[in-house]
């Protein structure tokens, strides 16, 4: 990093913040100003609400915002995935229509990729979009859609050609969620929460100008979205703000965060809550049980080695070293941690493991762990898919022979709407 540049950048931003930052402004007023100035997404192109800032200088901007607790552009939910995708694949009209309202937080977005018939195999989507001469008409069903019930727009992956090979028959659209052909229903999970939705399309309409990139290139566009999803998976749930900050803008930001975070409130439990284990074991008088002690040790070994492995991956990345295999292993390690934690909590709680809610240990928290952990090894790519990725991309092992080549119409599928 060029120290002169860094200093100049910091000074320039400080001056701008001093004359513009106002904790008593409304969230939208402030973010509108921020978006127009380019300081909201400084690494984006100057032409599109950015400042062409090199990624390496971005930490300075983050520091300056954090220094005075200035609110940033809207980053929560899948907004930034939508923004990154449109920035890379959208046309100028789409960029100017959608990007500002994403950054101000005025519009909420959802991602319409997974279907009942295609989870791990996302490219097997059978939700269809047919052009009737004026519009794209969408029919089908999506699932596991966070925030669909209050989303304004959806990122839709749909099949537009059934005769092309699987990956080449998909197209990418922005669909208006407020229309009669779109119906959103909560999806209740085995842990009783309903953090996601099922979305049904019955002759829903997409205007031709809302087609992103060219027809048949949808898989490539979806990969851009997914790449950003992986990158921001951690950032998604880390909006922290001191409680004692006062000002209209903080109240509005807190409301926004609470809405976005609502679906994720059980996520700590699905990771296994290893942090509770020692206290629970002491409370329940299990710290003298040699078998429980062995199981706790196994859990803590998994917890610590997973953490250190993640730090090795980050350290290598920060030093610009080629990423070693350690970067691909975190998800699998997290599954092992969650399963072992669930096992240990069961050993500690004994018969109380049968009880939930007010009757259960820690007012139902332990029960929530036990019935949420199975999600860890499925969500965001099953352990089996992770193992394939590790074996093929990290270890360089050969792929399985494919059964899904040729026209998609002829590929074996789950029962569902006919082609």
């Amino acid at each position: 990093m060029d120290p002169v540049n860094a200093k100049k950048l910091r000074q320039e931003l400080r001056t701008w913040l001093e004359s513009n930052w106002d904790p008593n402004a409304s969230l939208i007023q402030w973010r509108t100003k921020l978006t127009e100035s380019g300081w909201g997404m400084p690494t984006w192109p100057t032409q599109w609400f950015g400042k062409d800032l090199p990624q390496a200088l971005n930490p300075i901007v983050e520091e300056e915002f954090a220094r005075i607790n200035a609110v940033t552009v809207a980053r929560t939910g899948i907004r930034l995935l939508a923004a990154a995708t449109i920035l890379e694949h959208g046309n100028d009209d789409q960029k100017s229509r959608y990007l500002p309202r994403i950054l101000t937080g005025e519009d909420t977005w959802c991602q319409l990729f997974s279907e009942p018939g295609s989870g791990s195999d996302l490219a097997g989507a059978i939700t269809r979009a047919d052009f009737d001469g004026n519009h794209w008409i969408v029919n089908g069903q999506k699932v596991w859609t966070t925030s669909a019930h209050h989303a304004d727009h959806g990122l839709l992956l749909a099949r537009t050609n059934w005769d092309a090979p699987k990956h080449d028959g998909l197209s990418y659209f922005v669909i208006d969620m407020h229309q009669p052909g779109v119906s959103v229903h909560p999806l209740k999970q085995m842990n009783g929460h309903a953090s996601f939705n099922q979305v049904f399309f019955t002759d829903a309409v997409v205007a031709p100008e809302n087609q992103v990139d060219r027809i048949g290139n949808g898989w490539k566009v979806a990969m851009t979205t997914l790449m950003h999803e992986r990158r921001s998976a951690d950032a998604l749930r880390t909006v922290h703000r001191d409680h004692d900050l006062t000002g209209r803008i903080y109240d509005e930001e807190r409301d926004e965060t609470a809405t976005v975070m609502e679906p994720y409130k059980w996520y700590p439990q699905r990771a296994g809550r290893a942090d509770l284990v020692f206290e629970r074991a002491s409370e329940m008088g299990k710290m003298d049980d040699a078998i429980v002690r062995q199981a706790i040790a196994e859990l803590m070994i998994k917890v610590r080695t997973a953490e250190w492995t993640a730090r090795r991956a980050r350290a290598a990345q920060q030093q610009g070293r080629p990423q070693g295999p350690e970067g691909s292993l975190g998800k699998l390690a997290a599954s092992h941690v969650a399963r072992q934690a669930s096992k240990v909590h069961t050993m500690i709680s004994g018969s109380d493991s049968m009880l939930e809610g007010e009757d259960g240990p820690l007012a139902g928290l332990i029960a929530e762990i036990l019935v949420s952990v199975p999600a860890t090894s499925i969500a965001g790519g099953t352990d089996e898919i992770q193992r394939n990725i590790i074996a093929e991309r990290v270890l360089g092992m050969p792929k399985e022979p494919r059964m899904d080549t040729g026209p998609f119409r002829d590929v074996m599928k789950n029962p569902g709407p006919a082609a």
Partner: protein
Amino acid sequence: MQFTFNEEQDQLRATAQKFLADKSPTTEVRRIMATRQGYDAAVWTQLSGELGFTATHIPEAYGGLGLSYAELGIVFEEMGRSLLCAPFFATALAATAVMNVATESEKSELLPDIATGNRIATFAVFETAGKWDSDSIRLSAKNNQLNGIKRYVLDGHIADLLIVVARTNNGNETDSIGFFLVDGNAPGLTRRVVNTIDATRKLSELEFVDVTARRLGGDDDQAARLADTLDLAAIGLANEMVGGAQRLVDETVKYAVERIQFGRAIGSFQAIKHKCADMLLDVEMAKSAAYYAAAAAESHDPELPALASLAKASASEAYMRIAAECIQIHGGIGFTWDNDTHLWFKRAKSSEVFFGDPSYHKEQLITRWQH
């Protein structure tokens, strides 16, 4: 805490790798493991005198290179990868023991010869199967005369210097633990090489009958020093083990990609791929623990005893699982003597229990965290 290796450390690894690839191919491992001596004197001279590996963690004041346990860990790891047959682990551990207990003048006397590799040394501590702590030590020291038995002594049959842990009783009311220096050829000392599953690593049983010894580091109880030394031994061994485990992962993947059954490489079957992915996960997690513990040893992390147990338990289980899967994926050929896999399998087995088996270290981990 640093989570990557620096350029000098990468260079050290590259040097060790190149040397060991040249000097310790499996043909050499097989030749040397069949000898009673268990090492090649010319290779020993090169790795100690020329490359200075034996001097790695010994301070410069005593003729060493003054590097850290992280660097020693790298050397161990590469030796584990290549299955080098040499009294390196024994000598490095004896140096650690001396560094932990000896007086300045004793260090000045003993360490330079160890650093140059002129004298092979070892650390004799264990006596009872399944006991790895100071409570189990019975060998007695009275008026600097040792009587008793030491078992599982690494390279004990060839060591010039033995650092022996004994229970002292000089007429005091309570026993205490002391470190003693014994000459390898001392009268009254009988050394017997025992038959080991892992022929690449020679173990001896030592019988002491009125053997004259010299107390190191004064007369105070050295039980805490023993615990420190055993922690560092566990960390060193964990680093050696992850090197061997990584080698097996590499060999397994290579074989799975080459081996054809049912008209395709067996590595294209998910049943095999998934095992390989799990093996990689195992070895990387164990590496993280071994590296972290080695770095912690240098920074005198108060958590060190727990970290040592964590690293050893993690490496023991990972290495053994990987060794078993490596044979499994090789199929029939993996069970033959001619295939090299069993060499590492046996090292994994002996390392699993050496300096504490996984159950012992898991129990230690919890005990140590509770304090």
